[in-house]
Structure formats: C-alpha cells, structure tokens
C-alpha cells in the first residue's frame, strides 16, 4: 500500500508551497495539523518497510522504517507539534515555515535509508534551522546565524566526503552500521560528531541557541542534536570511543552552566550534558544501552523543550533571560513556574518524572558492562544536572531575590504547550511501560525498585541539602552580567585577530587590490548598461532597417563560411 510507506517529510515540505498560497489563518492550523498527521501516519505504518526510488543510477531509500526510526519519528512529530503550539502567536511566516521545514528535514533524515538521502536532509536541517536564528532580525543574530550555518554546512560537507569515499571503498551507500576503520567512516563519524556537539565541536550549540527567537529555541532544541544521536545510534553502536567522548560531554558543561548568566545558554550547556548520557549509551551498544539512549532522547526532547518554553515565556514577558535581571517571578507567573519545576524535576531524574525512567536505563547498562569510572562520572553529572537545570534555572528565574518585575502570566497557548509537555513528562515517569513499548529492543526493565528509588532520592536530596547550606552561607556563585569564554574563543577571537594582525602589514597591497576591484566593477557595470541596460545598444528598440540589416549580416556570414570551407 502506498500510504504504508508514504514519505512523511513530504507532508512537512508541502508547507512551503502552501505557505505561498494560503492565508496565515489557515497556515497556523496546518502547522499544528501536519505534525499530528505525521504522528498518526508513523503509528499506522508497518515495521520494516522501505520505499526506494531510483534517481540517476542511485538507489535512494527515502523511507526505511524500523523500530529505531519509529521512536525518533514519533518524538520528532510530537516536538514539532508542541513547538508550533507554543509559537501560535508568531505571525512571522518565514520563521514558522522554516520551522516546519526544519522538522520535516529532521524527520526525513531519520527515515533516510542511505547516506545520500541523509546528506540531503542533513543540509536541509542546517539551512532551514538558521532562519529560526535570523528571525530575531538583529545584526548580532545574523552573525551568529552565519557562524551556525557555516559549522552545520561543514558538517554536511564532511558527511558528503565520507559518503563518496565510503561508496568508493564499499560500493554501497546504505546507511547502516559502520566500523571506525577507514577514512570514510571517520569522516562520517566527525560529521555526526559536529552535529552532536562533541567536546571542542560543541560551541555552535551554546552560541546559537540563546540567539534564536523565543519560539525558535524551543524548536531548535528538539531536532539537530537528537538527529545526530539517532545517526550515531544507527551507524556506530558499540563504538568504544563514544563512551569516553560521552563521559567528557556530561562533565565539562556542568561547570560552564553553573556560572553562565543567560538562562537559555545554561539550558544549552545542560543539553550538551544530557547528550553525553545518550552518547555513552551508544558507546556501550548493548540492547539495554541503546534502548536507554532512545528513551532518553525521547524524554529529553520533551523536558528540554519544556524548560526552554518556560524560560522562553519569561523572555516573552520580561524581555530578558538573564539570571542577573530576573528573580521572584513566581508572584505573577505561578503556572509557568510550576511547569518549569516539572521540567526541572524531569531533567534531574526525580522518581515519578520522565528523566528517572530513562536515565537509569543508561546508568544500569554502564554498570552492567563494568565501566566503573564512567559510571561515577555519570552519577557526578547527574548531580551536576540538578545543580544547573534542576535548581539554577527555576531558582534564579522564578524564586531567588525579587527583581521587581511583575510580568503577566504567559499567554494561554504557551501554557497549553507547557501543560501538555509537563503532562507527557509525568505520564512517562509514572507509566514507563508506555514508552518502553516503542523502544528499538524488548524491555524487561523495572525502574521502580526500592534500591533505585532510594539511591536516586538520596543523591538528589543530599545535593539539595548541600545547595541549601551553600545558599545559607551565601557562597553561591553570584549572577553577574557577563559571559564566559569557551573553546570558541579560538575561532571567534584568536584566529581572526591573528589574521587581522598579519593582514595589517600588507595594508597598501590590499588597498590597491580593492581600488582595482572597484574600478573593474564600475567598468563592467557601465559596459553592461551601455549594451544591455534599459536603453542599451542591444536591448533598445531597433528600427526595422537595423533588424533587416542583421539578417543580411547573418546570411553573408553563413555564405562566406560555406564558401571558405567547402571549396
């Protein structure tokens, strides 16, 4: 049946032509309807089907549907729906269409069965998503978007190089498990790594997410990195190096998040840290670990979106998301505060919230494989998550000292989106079986054992206790209007400064070049104007005599040519 293998991304891409035609009123509804349709479609599709088209001697597998695809497809549709609901108030057509194209590309990439299709959607996500940053419409956002786009496109190009090499080595472009044994697979690995924000490749994430619009960040947070997690889970399960990379990823963002002032950037660091858990799961590569990764990605998209939504709502009402400017908002935004607390509890993995039932899968998988050090790092990172996402974000935004701001409660559609997401977080936390059913492998895991619950509560409660004591002693890092340098200083400051310094010495030559360039351009433009401009030699109206003369010229050209060559 056709419907059974319908490429769902088409549904999303349809919005681009439709957006040219329909009024914004209709489009808004379509923006919500399409993710729902996609969600239902995925639910109704038969497992292990594929849809192949033949394009210029390449077999492109547009749809490859199995359990791993399904769980990511479902959460992407869900995230698209929630993100669009949250953005109901936005009247910026370009931004919203870019958002839906972005989610469509991500879904297309998840369904891609070969590297060429994957590349297409890989770049699609890059190009579509940058509009969510540019939609802020400030020069700074433009520059940030360009930096983001550059890195994303480079990731795509590396993927393309890897694909070409892979095809050369193996003669296949199928997107399946790879071994890290050739240049091709390393290139592909690095390309995935860039999107997955591996250490030292991570700065695009913290750089761009706080620069996006209120609603854009929510949507951005859901797709790009989780797409990379999916790609890694598909191509590199059980690759040991991922375990160490993942551990490093959980570790270092904690400290940066703790001292970061912009709450959206705090969340971006925390996103990076959560990705680390998933990457470790992929590195372990057992069935349980991969289940854990998929489940954690699922839960993570929801609670991370929830946290971004609540901070976004604060930004929407107060105009800032900086911790130093906020505080005490619970007085007038109690509902948002509650949802934020739900998100915080989920991400900190309190029992009965979604993070708990998914993270413990990964932790146990690590423990079963006896990676002791890694396990300790992950536990440490869990405490770290609590410190910045669990406590810092809600505390500084809604509680803390009174900032004097008295904004209105978030608009209804935002509350709806946050409410739905909160409900999902809690539902998954209470009945993990619902989610486990859709995981790539069979699950026989019971998260709610006494041992687990008490251990987790001990960890969290004592950490909170420590927080209370530190707060009481007034030793918390203060919120100061500031930024913190990270690895990106290398390419944002050091290298450009170096080049500027170098180029300064050749100033004269540069000046000459620019002058020559300008005069050349002027000459070309004047020539163009003279010949093909609005009243140019060729483009102006000709008299009949001129026209007829040209006939004679062409004719004689042909005749002369014939006479000269054929005698």
């Amino acid at each position, binding site marked *: 049946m056709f419907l059974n293998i319908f490429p769902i991304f088409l549904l999303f891409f349809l919005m681009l032509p439709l957006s040219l035609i329909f009024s914004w009123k209709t489009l808004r509804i379509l923006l919500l309807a399409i993710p729902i349709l996609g969600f239902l479609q995925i639910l109704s599709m038969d497992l292990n089907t594929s849809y192949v088209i033949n394009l210029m001697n390449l077999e492109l597998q547009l749809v490859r549907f199995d359990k791993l695809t399904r769980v990511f497809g479902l959460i992407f549709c869900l995230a698209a729906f929630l993100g669009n609901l949250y953005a109901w108030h936005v009247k910026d057509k370009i931004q919203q269409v870019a958002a839906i194209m972005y989610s469509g590309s991500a879904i297309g990439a998840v369904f891609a069965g070969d590297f060429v299709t994957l590349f297409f959607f890989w770049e699609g996500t890059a190009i579509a998503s940058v509009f969510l940053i540019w939609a802020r419409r400030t020069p700074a956002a433009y520059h940030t978007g360009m930096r983001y786009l550059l890195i994303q496109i480079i990731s795509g190009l590396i993927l393309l190089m890897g694909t070409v090499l892979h095809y050369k080595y193996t003669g296949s472009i199928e997107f399946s498990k790879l071994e890290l044994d050739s240049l091709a697979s390393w290139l592909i690995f690095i390309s995935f790594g860039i999107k997955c924000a591996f250490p030292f490749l991570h700065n695009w994430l913290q750089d761009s997410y706080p620069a996006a619009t209120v609603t854009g960040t929510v949507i951005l947070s859901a797709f790009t990195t989780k797409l990379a997690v999916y790609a890694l889970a598909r191509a590199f399960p059980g690759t040991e190096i991922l375990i160490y990379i993942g551990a490093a990823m959980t570790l270092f963002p904690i400290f940066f998040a703790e001292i970061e002032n912009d709450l959206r950037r705090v969340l971006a660091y925390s996103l990076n840290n959560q990705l680390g858990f998933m990457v470790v799961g992929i590195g372990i590569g057992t069935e349980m670990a991969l289940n854990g990764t998929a489940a954690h990605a699922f839960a993570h998209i929801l609670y991370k979106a929830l946290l971004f939504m609540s901070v976004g709502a604060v930004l929407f009402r107060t105009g800032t998301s900086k911790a130093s400017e906020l505080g005490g908002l619970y007085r007038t935004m109690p509902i948002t505060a509650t949802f934020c607390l739900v998100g915080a509890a989920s991400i900190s993995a309190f029992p009965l919230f979604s993070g708990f039932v998914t993270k413990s899968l990964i932790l146990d998988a690590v423990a079963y494989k006896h990676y002791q050090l890694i396990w300790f790092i992950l536990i440490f990172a869990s405490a770290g998550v609590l410190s910045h996402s669990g406590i810092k974000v809600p505390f500084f935004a809604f509680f803390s000292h009174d900032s004097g701001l008295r904004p209105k409660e978030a608009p209804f559609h935002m509350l709806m989106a946050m409410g739905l997401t909160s409900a999902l977080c809690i539902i998954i936390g209470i009945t993990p079986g619902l989610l486990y059913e859709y995981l790539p492998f069979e699950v026989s895991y019971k998260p709610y054992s006494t041992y687990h619950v008490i251990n987790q509560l001990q960890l969290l409660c004592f950490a909170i206790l420590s927080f209370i004591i530190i707060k009481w002693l007034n030793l918390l890092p203060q919120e100061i209007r500031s930024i913190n340098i990270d690895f990106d200083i290398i390419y944002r400051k050091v290298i450009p400064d170096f080049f500027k310094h170098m180029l300064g010495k050749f100033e004269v030559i540069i000046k000459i070049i620019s002058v020559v360039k300008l005069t050349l351009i002027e000459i070309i433009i004047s020539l163009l104007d003279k010949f093909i401009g609005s009243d140019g030699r060729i483009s102006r109206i000709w*008299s*009949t*005599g001129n026209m*007829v003369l040209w006939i004679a010229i062409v004719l004689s050209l042909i005749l002369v040519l014939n006479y000269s060559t054929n005698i």
Partner: protein
Amino acid sequence: MIGDTLSQVGTLLATHSIYWLFIILMMTGFYIVVSRGNLIKKIIGLNLFQTSVFLFYISIGKVTGGTPPILPMKLKVDDFSVYSNPLPHVLILTAIVVGVATTALGLSLIIRIRESYGTIEESDLLEINRKIFSRENVQDLQQGDLFKDE
C-alpha cells in the same frame, strides 16, 4: 587565376543574365526596406523583393525551346514537343496570394499606425516609442528603490 575567374564571371553574366536581373531587383527591394523611413515605401520594397523571387521561380521553370505547358484543345499533340515546367507557376500563384495578403495587411497596419501616431515616418515612430519607454523607466527611477513604501 584572376583572368580565369573573370572569364567565369563573364560566362555567368552572359548565360544567366536573367538571374542577375532578378538579383538586382531583389537587392533594390531589400535596400528600400533597409533605407527608407516611410512605411509605405518599406512595403513597396518588400513587394519588390517578393516579386523578384517570384520571377526567379518562374524562370526556373523555363525549358529552352519549350512550349507553354498548356494542352491545346484543337491542335494535335506532338508527343515529342518540349514544354516548360508548370509546377513553379502553380507555386507562384500561391505565393502571390501570400504576397497580396501581406501587402494588404501591411497597408492596413500603416493606416492604423497613422491614426494612432499621426505619422508614418519610422524615425518619428521610433522617437515616440522610445519616449514612451523612457517615461516608463523614469517613473521607475523616480520611485527609486522598488522596495520603498509607496
């Protein structure tokens, strides 16, 4: 070499004199179309040009010593008599019709042009048309950037 060519040309002139006539006629017509500004004169030139081609066709059909390709009703038919090729004549009948239609259409267009523009001199017409063009463009320029609000 040159002498050879000259003698060749000489024989060509002598044996194909009728063709040269048509070519001169054709060039005259062509030249009129190119050089005259008056639209009616242009049509006349066009006519000359076409007619010369018709003549050229008819002359192809001529067979030396042949009779007209008409079957005489009363005379006895001589089986061995040579007659000219009738096909070009027939073709040219069609072509003449086309030529007449073209001339008629051209002239009626000239009437309409005269009604709307008040002139049938091509230089004047060109000037008027270019003025209209530049007026359109000037309107554009005055508005400056197309993206400005109105």
